[in-house]
């Protein structure tokens, strides 16, 4: 299990008595000060965790059993995205590029904490 302790904004939200469904203020875009220097090994755990990234629910990717077939295969990512930031934007909120995108907005809706997010980005970028 990855360390998925409650992140700070979620705690703040709970303290405010907000619903757990909306853990904190929604950030439409990646915060400017977020450094994309995560840990790919941890990101792999998050990506495969059913309650977290769950990338494999829709995407085939190396090292994961029983992938879904809704999204494209995650392979050669560095040839498909011009930069890590572009990939990160896509994972943060895929509906910016394509309003019809089915993929959940992992950053915007705080499905992942910021730490989990940068770790996942690092892992996916390495595929």
């Amino acid at each position, binding site marked *: 299990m990855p360390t998925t302790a409650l992140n700070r904004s979620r705690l703040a939200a709970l303290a405010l008595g907000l619903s757990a*469904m*909306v853990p904190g203020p929604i950030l439409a875009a990646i915060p400017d000060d977020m450094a994309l220097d995560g840990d790919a090994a941890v990101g792999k755990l998050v990506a495969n965790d059913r309650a977290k990234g769950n990338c494999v*629910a829709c995407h085939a990717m190396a090292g994961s059993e029983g992938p*879904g*077939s*809704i999204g494209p295969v995650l392979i050669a990512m560095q040839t498909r995205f011009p930069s890590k930031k572009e990939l990160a934007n896509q994972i943060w909120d895929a*509906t910016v590029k394509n309003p*019809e995108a*089915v993929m959940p907005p992992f950053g915007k809706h705080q*499905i992942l904490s910021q730490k989990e997010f940068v770790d996942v980005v690092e892992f996916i970028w390495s595929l």
Partner: protein
Amino acid sequence: MIVNKNTLILAVAGLACLLAGPLAAETPKEEQEAFQTYFKKRFPNVPEDDFKNGAYAIDPVGRENWEAIEEFPPYENSISNGETMWNKPFANGKGYADCFPDGPAIQGKYPYWDKARGLVVTLPLALNECRAANKEEPLKYQKGPIADLVAYIAFESRGQITKVEIPEDDPRALEAYQKGKQFYFARRGQLNFSCAQCHLGNSGTKLRTEILSPALGHTTHWPVYRSEWGEMGTLHRRFAGCNEQVRAKAFKPQGEEYRNLEYFLTYMNNGLELNGPGARK
């Protein structure tokens, strides 16, 4: 089994516009046709009368398991409990048959638009209204005795054809349908999924190892013994479960939202044979 990707994207976009678009020029009838044609084109090898079997119409391996399960149906006890309930008089000596003189094979009449009251009446709602009229406590809507009673009625109604009507002489009926449709196409929850994104646009693809069932066939077989539940549950229990899966707050079973959703979705399934109760993974 699935048509090529470009055609598919066009078809989905077209249908989404047709069904969800603000241009309400299309009639429910035309939308129903577009909906059904979409699935027939998407799954050209599925015989028309097989869509009622849900994911098992498109998943040969799952179907084998399902057919084995159907040899000794897990919903059998539920049917016989329901039959006992149907035949047991209320405290006042009356029974369900007094409320539903055509019963028990009445599932094909539901859901319907009640013009006098201006709302969609579903079978579980009507059953509880019968109980209330006879001074009996209402049944809870998601599982337990209501599922048994509906299972018995569904079993007796097998072979009836889905034929929901949207009466043209009451604009509120169309409005209820539109609300159900809007619900169906609206994204919700932290995961931001609409019903349609999985069960229309991505039906037949895999979520992990599970095949997403086509929406054509979703209303024929309730209540269901779901292995994941280990018991029977109603259609509205499933709606609530789906909403929770996308991390949205579920609505109240038999509240207006789910009744309208049932109205829309069952209308989309018009023409399919009723084959409840069912067994699903």
